[in-house]
């Protein structure tokens, strides 16, 4: 069991169940997503990948946080984060993070009807959901409904339901309802497509919990993006390592050159201890520890910058092959900036951490 507070408990590791879930996802997701398939998706009209999405549903990952009577497993943010690391490692296309955050929000703030209707559909992967959590543009709530535009929403294109953040808290909005329109927005990461969401007096159901739940879902979002980034960085290390073992230049494997060995050693040192940061943040959020938000911001700031560095090192280790559209590194080169800039950039998150720690 991973402790909420490592100062009080010397045990700091995943329990056996989560450890096994991670191993299962590693095998299942990488098998479903060879490089050729990822390249196909980057060239396709949409980021939908039914095969990997079906595996996530079958393993039970899409409904992890839903109560068991609604088709879920009643798990917390830590388990979602363990899965998010593997989603990042395999570069799973589509809005895993948006989907599971919507499930989390409905599970904690939805009324009985919403939970009974939506949670089994979302947990089984039969319907798609996402969240609109932009920090800059928040729709307004009036007596006639929600109005406003959220310019960047991951996963909105295929979503049936979107959970929208407003000044009052969170609201659930069925995408097919009158007054809801979406438009594709060309984004950097073609494995995770973006769109804008425009609401004009759209019908919505406010979720219980107000701003407290909205804050919690945003903190969870930061933890999950941090986990995705850590998984992506690990993949970059493994790709660089595999290439260094195979590629021969000047009559030697390039992994025998000290410059390459040292570059990989530096990369490993940068990446290896990262899990502790998002595990601790997730655990604190699950325990409703007041330090959870600070830990989430810290984890996201650091781990998404590490991912950027890992992706860039990985390109350099691969030479021209790394700089190729259908080369082995491209999906992660494009995922890194999305993780970096979604739900708060590292610079803005470090300002949050500084304020929380009482530094100026």
């Amino acid at each position, binding site marked *: 069991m991973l402790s909420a507070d490592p100062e009080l408990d010397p045990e700091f590791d995943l329990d056996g169940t989560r450890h096994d879930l991670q191993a299962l996802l590693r095998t299942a997701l990488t098998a479903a997503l060879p490089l050729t398939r990822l390249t196909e998706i980057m060239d396709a009209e949409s980021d939908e990948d039914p095969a990997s999405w079906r595996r996530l549903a079958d393993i039970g990952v899409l409904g992890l946080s839903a109560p068991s009577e609604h088709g879920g497993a009643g798990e917390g943010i830590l388990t979602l984060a363990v899965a998010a690391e593997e989603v990042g490692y395999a570069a799973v296309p589509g809005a895993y993070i948006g989907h599971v955050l919507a499930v989390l929000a409905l599970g904690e703030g939805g009324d009985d009807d919403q939970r009974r209707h939506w949670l089994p559909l979302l947990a089984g992967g039969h319907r798609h959901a996402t969240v609109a959590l932009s920090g800059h543009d928040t729709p307004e709530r009036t007596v006639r409904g929600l109005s406003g535009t959220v310019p960047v929403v991951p996963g909105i294109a295929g979503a049936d339901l979107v959970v929208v953040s407003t000044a009052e808290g969170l609201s659930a909005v069925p995408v097919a309802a009158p007054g809801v329109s979406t438009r594709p927005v060309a984004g950097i990461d073609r494995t995770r497509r973006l769109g804008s969401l425009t609401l004009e007096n759209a019908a919505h159901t406010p979720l219980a919990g107000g701003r407290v739940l909205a804050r919690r879902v945003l903190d969870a979002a930061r933890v999950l993006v941090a986990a995705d980034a850590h998984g992506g960085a690990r993949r970059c290390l493994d790709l660089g*390592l595999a290439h260094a073992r195979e590629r021969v230049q000047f009559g030697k494997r390039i*992994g025998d050159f000290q410059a390459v060995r040292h570059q990989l050693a530096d990369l490993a040192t940068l990446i*290896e201890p990262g899990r502790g940061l998002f595990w601790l943040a997730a655990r604190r959020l699950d325990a409703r520890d007041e330090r959870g938000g600070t830990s989430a911001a810290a984890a996201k700031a650091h781990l998404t910058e590490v991912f950027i560095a890992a992706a860039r090192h990985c390109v350099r280790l691969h030479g021209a092959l790394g700089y190729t559209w259908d080369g082995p590194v491209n999906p992660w080169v494009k995922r890194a900036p999305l993780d970096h800039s979604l739900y708060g950039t590292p610079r803005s998150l470090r300002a949050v951490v500084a304020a929380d720690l009482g*530094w100026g």
Partner: protein
Amino acid sequence: MVGGSTRTQRLFAALVQLARTRRLDGTAAVEDPTIRDELVRIHVMVEEHRLGDLLRTTRRHSGRDPGLLPLTAKLAASGIADRVSALALTLLDEDALLDPNADREERPGPERWTNQWLGSLGLSIAAGTSNIQRDIIASRGLGLSGDRERDPAC
């Protein structure tokens, strides 16, 4: 233990204290956005190092594979010490010009930090320099055998 997180945490606590007490351009250094950003950056690295240590210890007891953590901890600690030293030098401003060990009448001031700046270099050399650590990580951790192991003439 070389590369352990306790020393790194103590060092960082002292750096925070320095940032709180020093003034740059007329305001407390900790309120300068650039200083604060770097301070948080190092804070997160220190926290990451501490949690890595904890996981390494837990896995030593449980028998589960600790991965590369036992090999990377020292290099990570040296990296953190480098950043602490760089920020301390900025915070010292012109006091960094002073010899930290000179026999002066007044009590030694913030220039004592210069000893840390010099001492952190020693830490990155003691018990295997950083480049030796990189070779160890590559050979034992990443399975890249390298010239020495493959070619006895090297």
